[in-house]
Protein backbone atom coordinates (compact mmCIF):
# COMPACT_ATOMS: atom_id res chain seq x y z
CA UNK A 1 0.00 0.00 0.00
CA UNK A 2 1.26 3.45 -0.90
CA UNK A 3 1.70 5.78 2.04
CA UNK A 4 2.42 9.43 1.40
CA UNK A 5 5.02 11.15 3.49
CA UNK A 6 3.31 14.52 3.35
CA UNK A 7 3.23 14.82 7.15
CA UNK A 8 6.90 13.86 7.37
CA UNK A 9 6.06 11.33 10.04
CA UNK A 10 9.02 9.40 11.39
CA UNK A 11 6.79 6.70 12.82
CA UNK A 12 3.07 6.18 12.74
CA UNK A 13 1.29 3.68 14.94
CA UNK A 14 -2.40 3.21 14.18
CA UNK A 15 -4.86 1.15 16.23
CA UNK A 16 -1.97 -0.95 17.44
CA UNK A 17 -2.68 -4.04 19.53
CA UNK A 18 -0.29 -6.57 20.97
CA UNK A 19 -1.20 -9.75 22.76
CA UNK A 20 1.46 -12.21 23.90
CA UNK A 21 1.33 -15.36 25.93
CA UNK A 22 3.10 -15.46 29.25
CA UNK A 23 3.12 -18.81 31.07
CA UNK A 24 0.09 -19.97 29.14
CA UNK A 25 -2.09 -16.93 29.82
CA UNK A 26 -2.61 -14.28 27.16
CA UNK A 27 -1.46 -10.79 28.13
CA UNK A 28 -2.85 -7.79 26.28
CA UNK A 29 0.03 -5.33 26.34
CA UNK A 30 -1.32 -2.73 23.94
CA UNK A 31 -4.83 -2.11 22.67
CA UNK A 32 -5.96 0.54 20.20
CA UNK A 33 -2.76 2.52 20.51
CA UNK A 34 -2.42 5.53 18.20
CA UNK A 35 0.66 7.70 17.94
CA UNK A 36 2.39 9.68 15.25
CA UNK A 37 5.93 10.87 15.76
CA UNK A 38 6.91 13.66 13.42
CA UNK A 39 10.39 13.81 11.90
CA UNK A 40 12.69 15.66 14.26
CA UNK A 41 10.13 15.62 17.04
CA UNK A 42 10.90 14.56 20.60
CA UNK A 43 8.08 12.50 22.00
CA UNK A 44 7.92 10.91 25.43
CA UNK A 45 5.63 7.99 26.20
CA UNK A 46 4.87 7.97 29.92
CA UNK A 47 2.97 5.34 31.80
CA UNK A 48 3.06 2.95 34.72
CA UNK A 49 5.20 -0.21 34.62
CA UNK A 50 3.77 -2.89 32.39
CA UNK A 51 1.69 -0.60 30.18
CA UNK A 52 3.35 -1.97 27.05
CA UNK A 53 5.84 0.87 26.63
CA UNK A 54 8.79 -1.41 25.96
CA UNK A 55 6.66 -3.48 23.57
CA UNK A 56 5.97 -0.31 21.61
CA UNK A 57 9.71 0.24 21.13
CA UNK A 58 10.24 -3.41 20.21
CA UNK A 59 7.57 -2.98 17.51
CA UNK A 60 9.21 0.26 16.36
CA UNK A 61 12.58 -1.50 16.10
CA UNK A 62 11.01 -4.33 14.12
CA UNK A 63 11.81 -6.94 16.76
CA UNK A 64 8.18 -8.01 17.22
CA UNK A 65 5.09 -7.79 15.06
CA UNK A 66 1.91 -6.20 16.41
CA UNK A 67 -1.07 -8.54 16.79
CA UNK A 68 -3.21 -6.08 14.85
CA UNK A 69 -3.00 -2.49 13.66
CA UNK A 70 -0.20 -0.93 11.71
CA UNK A 71 3.21 0.43 12.51
CA UNK A 72 4.61 2.50 9.67
CA UNK A 73 8.21 3.24 10.43
CA UNK A 74 9.50 5.80 7.94
CA UNK A 75 12.81 6.49 9.63
CA UNK A 76 15.24 3.75 10.52
CA UNK A 77 15.24 3.07 14.26
CA UNK A 78 18.16 2.72 16.65
CA UNK A 79 17.08 1.13 19.90
CA UNK A 80 18.63 1.92 23.28
CA UNK A 81 17.34 -0.64 25.76
CA UNK A 82 16.87 -0.16 29.48
CA UNK A 83 20.11 -1.91 30.35
CA UNK A 84 23.26 -0.48 28.83
CA UNK A 85 24.22 -3.91 27.38
CA UNK A 86 27.90 -2.97 27.21
CA UNK A 87 29.97 -6.07 26.61
CA UNK A 88 32.90 -6.68 28.96
CA UNK A 89 35.18 -8.06 26.26
CA UNK A 90 35.32 -4.70 24.49
CA UNK A 91 36.76 -1.36 25.58
CA UNK A 92 34.40 1.63 25.89
CA UNK A 93 35.31 2.85 22.40
CA UNK A 94 34.85 -0.56 20.82
CA UNK A 95 31.52 -0.96 22.61
CA UNK A 96 30.30 2.18 20.87
CA UNK A 97 31.74 0.93 17.58
CA UNK A 98 29.73 -2.28 17.95
CA UNK A 99 26.68 -0.50 16.48
CA UNK A 100 28.56 -0.04 13.22
CA UNK A 101 30.19 -3.45 13.24
CA UNK A 102 26.73 -5.00 13.66
CA UNK A 103 25.83 -3.36 10.35
CA UNK A 104 28.89 -4.80 8.65
CA UNK A 105 31.30 -1.85 8.88
CA UNK A 106 34.89 -3.12 9.12
CA UNK A 107 36.37 -2.85 12.59
CA UNK A 108 38.97 -0.15 11.84
CA UNK A 109 36.40 2.05 10.12
CA UNK A 110 33.93 1.63 12.98
CA UNK A 111 36.56 2.66 15.51
CA UNK A 112 37.55 5.67 13.41
CA UNK A 113 33.91 6.77 13.33
CA UNK A 114 33.45 6.33 17.09
CA UNK A 115 36.56 8.23 18.14
CA UNK A 116 35.44 11.80 17.30
CA UNK A 117 32.16 11.25 19.18
CA UNK A 118 34.09 10.44 22.35
CA UNK A 119 35.89 13.73 21.97
CA UNK A 120 32.75 15.71 21.32
CA UNK A 121 30.58 14.29 24.05
CA UNK A 122 32.88 14.43 27.04
CA UNK A 123 34.20 10.90 26.96
CA UNK A 124 37.73 11.76 25.82
CA UNK A 125 40.26 9.75 27.79
CA UNK A 126 37.84 6.90 28.43
CA UNK A 127 38.27 5.26 25.01
CA UNK A 128 40.33 2.39 26.33
CA UNK A 129 38.54 2.00 29.65
CA UNK A 130 37.20 -1.44 30.44
CA UNK A 131 33.47 -1.52 31.07
CA UNK A 132 33.86 -2.45 34.74
CA UNK A 133 35.94 0.68 35.30
CA UNK A 134 33.08 2.96 34.19
CA UNK A 135 30.48 4.47 36.51
CA UNK A 136 26.78 3.97 35.82
CA UNK A 137 26.48 7.38 34.17
CA UNK A 138 29.53 6.79 31.99
CA UNK A 139 28.19 3.42 30.92
CA UNK A 140 24.93 5.05 29.82
CA UNK A 141 26.86 7.66 27.87
CA UNK A 142 28.76 4.96 26.01
CA UNK A 143 25.48 3.11 25.39
CA UNK A 144 23.96 6.33 24.03
CA UNK A 145 26.92 7.00 21.74
CA UNK A 146 26.56 3.44 20.49
CA UNK A 147 22.90 4.25 19.70
CA UNK A 148 23.91 7.48 17.92
CA UNK A 149 26.60 5.67 15.93
CA UNK A 150 24.02 3.34 14.48
CA UNK A 151 23.44 6.32 12.20
CA UNK A 152 19.67 6.10 12.27
CA UNK A 153 17.45 9.16 12.41
CA UNK A 154 14.97 7.82 14.98
CA UNK A 155 16.28 7.04 18.45
CA UNK A 156 14.05 4.78 20.54
CA UNK A 157 15.15 5.08 24.16
CA UNK A 158 13.72 2.72 26.76
CA UNK A 159 14.09 4.15 30.29
CA UNK A 160 17.65 5.11 29.44
CA UNK A 161 18.53 6.50 32.87
CA UNK A 162 16.23 4.35 34.99
CA UNK A 163 19.05 2.66 36.85
CA UNK A 164 20.83 5.87 37.83
CA UNK A 165 20.52 7.91 41.01
CA UNK A 166 18.54 11.13 40.63
CA UNK A 167 21.57 13.44 40.67
CA UNK A 168 23.38 11.48 37.97
CA UNK A 169 20.12 11.20 36.07
CA UNK A 170 19.78 14.99 36.00
CA UNK A 171 23.34 15.33 34.70
CA UNK A 172 22.66 12.70 32.07
CA UNK A 173 19.54 14.53 30.89
CA UNK A 174 21.54 17.69 30.48
CA UNK A 175 24.26 15.79 28.65
CA UNK A 176 21.68 14.14 26.40
CA UNK A 177 20.11 17.51 25.51
CA UNK A 178 23.57 18.79 24.59
CA UNK A 179 24.28 15.74 22.46
CA UNK A 180 20.92 16.04 20.68
CA UNK A 181 21.51 19.75 20.04
CA UNK A 182 24.77 18.87 18.33
CA UNK A 183 23.40 15.81 16.50
CA UNK A 184 19.66 16.33 16.02
CA UNK A 185 17.57 13.17 15.88
CA UNK A 186 13.96 12.20 16.20
CA UNK A 187 13.41 10.95 19.72
CA UNK A 188 10.91 8.42 20.99
CA UNK A 189 11.49 8.15 24.72
CA UNK A 190 9.75 5.67 26.96
CA UNK A 191 9.84 6.41 30.68
CA UNK A 192 7.82 6.30 33.89
CA UNK A 193 9.49 9.46 35.09
CA UNK A 194 7.31 12.49 34.29
CA UNK A 195 10.10 14.92 35.13
CA UNK A 196 12.38 13.20 32.65
CA UNK A 197 9.72 13.29 29.95
CA UNK A 198 9.07 17.01 30.50
CA UNK A 199 12.79 17.82 30.69
CA UNK A 200 13.70 16.08 27.45
CA UNK A 201 10.69 16.12 25.15
CA UNK A 202 8.40 18.56 23.37
CA UNK A 203 5.38 16.27 23.47
CA UNK A 204 4.34 13.89 26.24
CA UNK A 205 1.94 11.02 25.63
CA UNK A 206 0.33 9.54 28.73
CA UNK A 207 -0.47 5.85 28.47
CA UNK A 208 -3.08 3.97 30.50
CA UNK A 209 -2.20 0.89 32.55
CA UNK A 210 -2.32 -2.41 30.67
CA UNK A 211 -3.64 -2.73 28.05
CA UNK A 212 -1.85 0.43 27.04
CA UNK A 213 -3.59 3.06 24.99
CA UNK A 214 -3.20 6.82 24.82
CA UNK A 215 -4.96 8.57 27.72
CA UNK A 216 -3.80 12.13 27.09
CA UNK A 217 -1.28 14.20 25.20
CA UNK A 218 0.51 17.29 26.40
CA UNK A 219 2.63 19.58 24.37
CA UNK A 220 5.50 20.97 26.37
CA UNK A 221 6.12 24.69 25.93
CA UNK A 222 9.64 25.03 27.03
CA UNK A 223 10.92 28.61 26.81
CA UNK A 224 13.57 29.04 24.13
CA UNK A 225 17.10 29.17 25.52
CA UNK A 226 16.29 28.16 29.08
CA UNK A 227 18.69 25.81 30.80
CA UNK A 228 17.49 22.51 32.16
CA UNK A 229 17.64 23.67 35.77
CA UNK A 230 15.80 26.90 34.95
CA UNK A 231 13.15 24.91 33.13
CA UNK A 232 12.53 22.21 35.75
CA UNK A 233 12.18 24.80 38.50
CA UNK A 234 9.82 27.08 36.52
CA UNK A 235 6.09 27.43 37.26
CA UNK A 236 5.33 26.32 33.67
CA UNK A 237 7.12 23.02 34.36
CA UNK A 238 5.12 22.56 37.56
CA UNK A 239 1.87 23.27 35.68
CA UNK A 240 2.76 20.78 32.95
CA UNK A 241 3.63 18.19 35.56
CA UNK A 242 0.33 18.78 37.33
CA UNK A 243 -1.67 18.12 34.18
CA UNK A 244 0.40 15.03 33.43
CA UNK A 245 -0.24 13.68 36.91
CA UNK A 246 -3.92 14.37 36.52
CA UNK A 247 -4.00 12.44 33.24
CA UNK A 248 -2.21 9.52 34.86
CA UNK A 249 -4.56 9.24 37.81
Amino acid sequence: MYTSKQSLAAAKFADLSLTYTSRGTPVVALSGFDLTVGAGERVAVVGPSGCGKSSLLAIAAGLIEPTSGTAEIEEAVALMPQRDLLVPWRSALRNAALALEAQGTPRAEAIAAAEPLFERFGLAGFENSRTWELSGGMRQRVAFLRTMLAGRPLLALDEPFGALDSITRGQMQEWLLGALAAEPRTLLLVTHDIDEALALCSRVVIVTPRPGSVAAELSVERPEGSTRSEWITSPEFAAAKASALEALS
Partner: protein
Amino acid sequence: MNDEPRSRTLRMLSPIFAFVVLIICWELFARYAGLDNLLVSGPLDVVEAFGDESDLLVEATWITAQEAVIGLFMACVVGISIGVILHLSPLLRDATLPVVVASQAVPTVVLAPLLVIAFGFGITTKIFIVALACFFPIVIGTFDGLRSADPQLLNLLRSLGAGRMRVLRLAELPAALPRMLSGIRIAATWAFIAAVFAEYAGSQGGLGYLIARGTPSFETSRVYAAILILTAASLTLYGLMALLERKLVPWERHAANQR
Protein backbone atom coordinates in the same frame (compact mmCIF):
# COMPACT_ATOMS: atom_id res chain seq x y z
CA MET B 1 43.31 -5.22 55.68
CA ASN B 2 46.70 -5.18 57.36
CA ASP B 3 47.18 -8.90 57.80
CA GLU B 4 46.13 -9.70 54.24
CA PRO B 5 49.67 -10.00 52.77
CA ARG B 6 50.69 -12.21 55.68
CA SER B 7 47.72 -14.51 55.26
CA ARG B 8 48.43 -14.69 51.53
CA THR B 9 52.04 -15.78 52.17
CA LEU B 10 50.73 -18.31 54.65
CA ARG B 11 48.28 -19.61 52.10
CA MET B 12 51.09 -20.00 49.55
CA LEU B 13 53.43 -21.71 51.99
CA SER B 14 51.08 -24.11 53.70
CA PRO B 15 50.65 -26.52 50.77
CA ILE B 16 54.43 -26.52 50.23
CA PHE B 17 54.85 -27.38 53.90
CA ALA B 18 52.30 -30.19 53.55
CA PHE B 19 54.21 -31.58 50.56
CA VAL B 20 57.49 -31.53 52.45
CA VAL B 21 55.95 -33.38 55.39
CA LEU B 22 54.44 -35.92 53.01
CA ILE B 23 57.82 -36.51 51.32
CA ILE B 24 59.60 -36.94 54.67
CA CYS B 25 56.98 -39.46 55.79
CA TRP B 26 57.42 -41.32 52.51
CA GLU B 27 61.23 -41.47 52.92
CA LEU B 28 60.89 -42.68 56.54
CA PHE B 29 58.36 -45.30 55.48
CA ALA B 30 60.53 -46.57 52.62
CA ARG B 31 63.56 -46.83 54.90
CA TYR B 32 62.18 -48.18 58.12
CA ALA B 33 59.04 -50.13 57.24
CA GLY B 34 61.22 -53.13 56.57
CA LEU B 35 60.14 -53.54 52.97
CA ASP B 36 62.45 -54.56 50.20
CA ASN B 37 63.99 -51.68 48.26
CA LEU B 38 62.82 -53.42 45.13
CA LEU B 39 59.20 -53.04 46.16
CA VAL B 40 59.16 -49.55 47.62
CA SER B 41 61.41 -46.67 46.59
CA GLY B 42 61.94 -43.63 48.79
CA PRO B 43 62.17 -40.07 47.49
CA LEU B 44 65.96 -40.22 47.50
CA ASP B 45 65.91 -43.32 45.28
CA VAL B 46 63.58 -41.51 42.92
CA VAL B 47 65.90 -38.51 42.80
CA GLU B 48 68.70 -40.91 41.93
CA ALA B 49 66.58 -42.43 39.17
CA PHE B 50 66.05 -38.94 37.76
CA GLY B 51 69.82 -38.55 37.51
CA ASP B 52 70.66 -42.02 36.23
CA GLU B 53 67.87 -42.37 33.72
CA SER B 54 67.37 -38.80 32.61
CA ASP B 55 67.74 -39.61 28.88
CA LEU B 56 65.11 -42.32 29.08
CA LEU B 57 62.72 -40.15 31.09
CA VAL B 58 63.14 -37.08 28.88
CA GLU B 59 62.45 -39.12 25.77
CA ALA B 60 59.37 -40.73 27.32
CA THR B 61 58.09 -37.37 28.59
CA TRP B 62 58.51 -35.83 25.16
CA ILE B 63 56.46 -38.60 23.53
CA THR B 64 53.66 -38.43 26.10
CA ALA B 65 53.61 -34.62 26.10
CA GLN B 66 53.18 -34.60 22.31
CA GLU B 67 50.28 -37.02 22.54
CA ALA B 68 48.62 -35.08 25.37
CA VAL B 69 49.06 -31.59 23.92
CA ILE B 70 48.17 -32.44 20.32
CA GLY B 71 45.27 -34.57 21.59
CA LEU B 72 44.00 -31.69 23.72
CA PHE B 73 44.35 -29.35 20.77
CA MET B 74 42.34 -31.71 18.57
CA ALA B 75 39.76 -31.98 21.36
CA CYS B 76 39.48 -28.17 21.33
CA VAL B 77 39.03 -28.02 17.56
CA VAL B 78 36.45 -30.80 17.52
CA GLY B 79 34.76 -29.79 20.79
CA ILE B 80 34.33 -26.13 19.87
CA SER B 81 33.11 -27.05 16.37
CA ILE B 82 30.53 -29.48 17.74
CA GLY B 83 29.46 -26.95 20.37
CA VAL B 84 28.90 -24.27 17.71
CA ILE B 85 27.03 -26.70 15.43
CA LEU B 86 24.80 -27.83 18.30
CA HIS B 87 24.04 -24.20 19.01
CA LEU B 88 23.31 -23.19 15.43
CA SER B 89 21.12 -26.07 14.35
CA PRO B 90 18.33 -27.48 16.53
CA LEU B 91 18.00 -30.36 14.09
CA LEU B 92 21.66 -31.34 14.38
CA ARG B 93 21.44 -30.82 18.13
CA ASP B 94 18.70 -33.41 18.44
CA ALA B 95 20.65 -35.78 16.22
CA THR B 96 24.12 -35.26 17.65
CA LEU B 97 23.79 -34.61 21.36
CA PRO B 98 22.78 -38.20 22.29
CA VAL B 99 25.74 -39.53 20.29
CA VAL B 100 28.11 -37.11 22.02
CA VAL B 101 26.79 -38.09 25.44
CA ALA B 102 26.92 -41.79 24.56
CA SER B 103 30.56 -41.42 23.52
CA GLN B 104 31.26 -40.46 27.12
CA ALA B 105 29.37 -43.42 28.56
CA VAL B 106 31.83 -45.82 26.88
CA PRO B 107 34.86 -45.99 29.17
CA THR B 108 38.06 -44.93 27.41
CA VAL B 109 40.02 -47.56 29.38
CA VAL B 110 38.32 -50.44 27.59
CA LEU B 111 38.00 -48.62 24.29
CA ALA B 112 41.70 -47.78 24.05
CA PRO B 113 42.97 -51.33 23.33
CA LEU B 114 40.31 -51.78 20.64
CA LEU B 115 41.35 -48.53 19.00
CA VAL B 116 44.98 -49.61 19.10
CA ILE B 117 44.00 -52.86 17.39
CA ALA B 118 42.03 -50.93 14.79
CA PHE B 119 44.44 -48.06 14.13
CA GLY B 120 47.84 -49.33 15.17
CA PHE B 121 50.55 -48.39 17.67
CA GLY B 122 51.38 -45.01 16.17
CA ILE B 123 50.96 -41.56 17.69
CA THR B 124 47.75 -40.94 15.70
CA THR B 125 45.88 -43.53 17.75
CA LYS B 126 47.11 -41.94 21.00
CA ILE B 127 46.06 -38.48 19.85
CA PHE B 128 42.67 -39.87 18.90
CA ILE B 129 42.21 -41.47 22.34
CA VAL B 130 43.27 -38.27 24.15
CA ALA B 131 40.91 -36.18 22.02
CA LEU B 132 38.08 -38.64 22.64
CA ALA B 133 38.64 -38.46 26.39
CA CYS B 134 38.93 -34.67 26.45
CA PHE B 135 36.43 -33.24 23.99
CA PHE B 136 33.24 -33.61 26.02
CA PRO B 137 33.67 -30.82 28.60
CA ILE B 138 34.72 -28.54 25.74
CA VAL B 139 31.52 -29.30 23.81
CA ILE B 140 29.39 -28.64 26.88
CA GLY B 141 31.35 -25.50 27.83
CA THR B 142 31.03 -24.10 24.30
CA PHE B 143 27.36 -25.00 23.95
CA ASP B 144 26.33 -23.62 27.35
CA GLY B 145 28.54 -20.58 26.83
CA LEU B 146 26.95 -19.73 23.50
CA ARG B 147 23.52 -19.94 25.08
CA SER B 148 24.59 -17.68 27.95
CA ALA B 149 24.78 -14.62 25.68
CA ASP B 150 22.38 -11.89 26.78
CA PRO B 151 19.20 -12.21 24.65
CA GLN B 152 18.69 -8.44 24.81
CA LEU B 153 22.14 -7.89 23.34
CA LEU B 154 21.32 -10.31 20.53
CA ASN B 155 18.07 -8.41 19.90
CA LEU B 156 19.96 -5.13 19.80
CA LEU B 157 22.38 -6.47 17.20
CA ARG B 158 19.54 -7.96 15.17
CA SER B 159 17.67 -4.65 15.26
CA LEU B 160 20.77 -3.13 13.64
CA GLY B 161 20.61 -5.70 10.90
CA ALA B 162 23.22 -8.21 12.05
CA GLY B 163 22.65 -11.66 10.54
CA ARG B 164 23.05 -15.05 12.25
CA MET B 165 26.80 -15.36 11.65
CA ARG B 166 27.54 -11.78 12.66
CA VAL B 167 25.57 -12.18 15.88
CA LEU B 168 27.60 -15.34 16.54
CA ARG B 169 30.89 -13.55 15.94
CA LEU B 170 30.14 -10.28 17.73
CA ALA B 171 28.18 -11.51 20.73
CA GLU B 172 27.74 -15.24 21.22
CA LEU B 173 31.31 -16.46 20.73
CA PRO B 174 32.91 -13.84 23.00
CA ALA B 175 30.18 -14.43 25.58
CA ALA B 176 30.92 -18.16 25.37
CA LEU B 177 34.63 -17.70 25.98
CA PRO B 178 34.63 -18.04 29.81
CA ARG B 179 32.70 -21.33 29.82
CA MET B 180 34.55 -22.61 26.80
CA LEU B 181 37.87 -22.02 28.55
CA SER B 182 36.59 -23.66 31.75
CA GLY B 183 35.75 -26.71 29.64
CA ILE B 184 39.24 -26.69 28.15
CA ARG B 185 40.77 -26.39 31.63
CA ILE B 186 38.80 -29.42 32.83
CA ALA B 187 39.80 -31.29 29.66
CA ALA B 188 43.45 -30.40 30.29
CA THR B 189 43.42 -32.37 33.55
CA TRP B 190 42.49 -35.46 31.54
CA ALA B 191 44.95 -35.11 28.67
CA PHE B 192 48.01 -36.73 30.27
CA ILE B 193 46.02 -39.45 32.01
CA ALA B 194 44.36 -40.31 28.72
CA ALA B 195 47.74 -40.39 26.96
CA VAL B 196 49.02 -42.86 29.58
CA PHE B 197 45.92 -45.02 29.16
CA ALA B 198 46.53 -45.04 25.44
CA GLU B 199 50.14 -46.09 25.95
CA TYR B 200 49.07 -48.81 28.37
CA ALA B 201 46.90 -50.21 25.62
CA GLY B 202 49.87 -50.70 23.38
CA SER B 203 52.87 -48.55 22.58
CA GLN B 204 56.59 -48.43 22.04
CA GLY B 205 57.41 -45.37 24.12
CA GLY B 206 56.18 -42.72 26.52
CA LEU B 207 55.67 -42.43 30.26
CA GLY B 208 52.76 -44.89 30.23
CA TYR B 209 54.98 -47.35 28.41
CA LEU B 210 57.73 -46.91 31.04
CA ILE B 211 55.24 -47.45 33.86
CA ALA B 212 53.62 -50.46 32.18
CA ARG B 213 57.05 -52.03 31.51
CA GLY B 214 58.73 -50.95 34.73
CA THR B 215 56.15 -52.24 37.22
CA PRO B 216 56.40 -55.99 36.48
CA SER B 217 60.20 -55.79 36.18
CA PHE B 218 60.60 -54.06 39.56
CA GLU B 219 62.06 -50.83 38.15
CA THR B 220 60.25 -49.19 41.06
CA SER B 221 62.30 -45.97 41.19
CA ARG B 222 61.87 -45.38 37.48
CA VAL B 223 58.12 -45.94 37.73
CA TYR B 224 57.87 -43.49 40.63
CA ALA B 225 59.89 -40.95 38.68
CA ALA B 226 57.59 -41.37 35.69
CA ILE B 227 54.53 -40.89 37.89
CA LEU B 228 56.02 -37.72 39.37
CA ILE B 229 56.75 -36.33 35.91
CA LEU B 230 53.22 -37.20 34.85
CA THR B 231 51.74 -35.36 37.82
CA ALA B 232 53.95 -32.34 37.24
CA ALA B 233 53.13 -32.30 33.52
CA SER B 234 49.41 -32.51 34.23
CA LEU B 235 49.62 -29.67 36.74
CA THR B 236 51.66 -27.57 34.31
CA LEU B 237 49.14 -28.05 31.51
CA TYR B 238 46.30 -27.18 33.88
CA GLY B 239 48.22 -24.12 35.09
CA LEU B 240 48.83 -22.96 31.53
CA MET B 241 45.13 -23.27 30.74
CA ALA B 242 44.21 -21.36 33.91
CA LEU B 243 46.71 -18.65 32.91
CA LEU B 244 45.23 -18.52 29.41
CA GLU B 245 41.79 -18.09 30.95
CA ARG B 246 43.01 -15.23 33.12
CA LYS B 247 44.59 -13.49 30.12
CA LEU B 248 41.70 -14.00 27.71
CA VAL B 249 38.72 -13.29 29.97
CA PRO B 250 39.85 -10.65 32.49
CA TRP B 251 36.21 -9.56 32.93
CA GLU B 252 35.29 -12.80 34.67
CA ARG B 253 37.42 -11.89 37.68
CA HIS B 254 35.96 -8.41 37.81
CA ALA B 255 32.42 -9.70 37.58
CA ALA B 256 33.19 -12.01 40.51
CA ASN B 257 34.65 -9.13 42.52
CA GLN B 258 31.53 -7.07 42.04
CA ARG B 259 29.26 -9.74 43.44
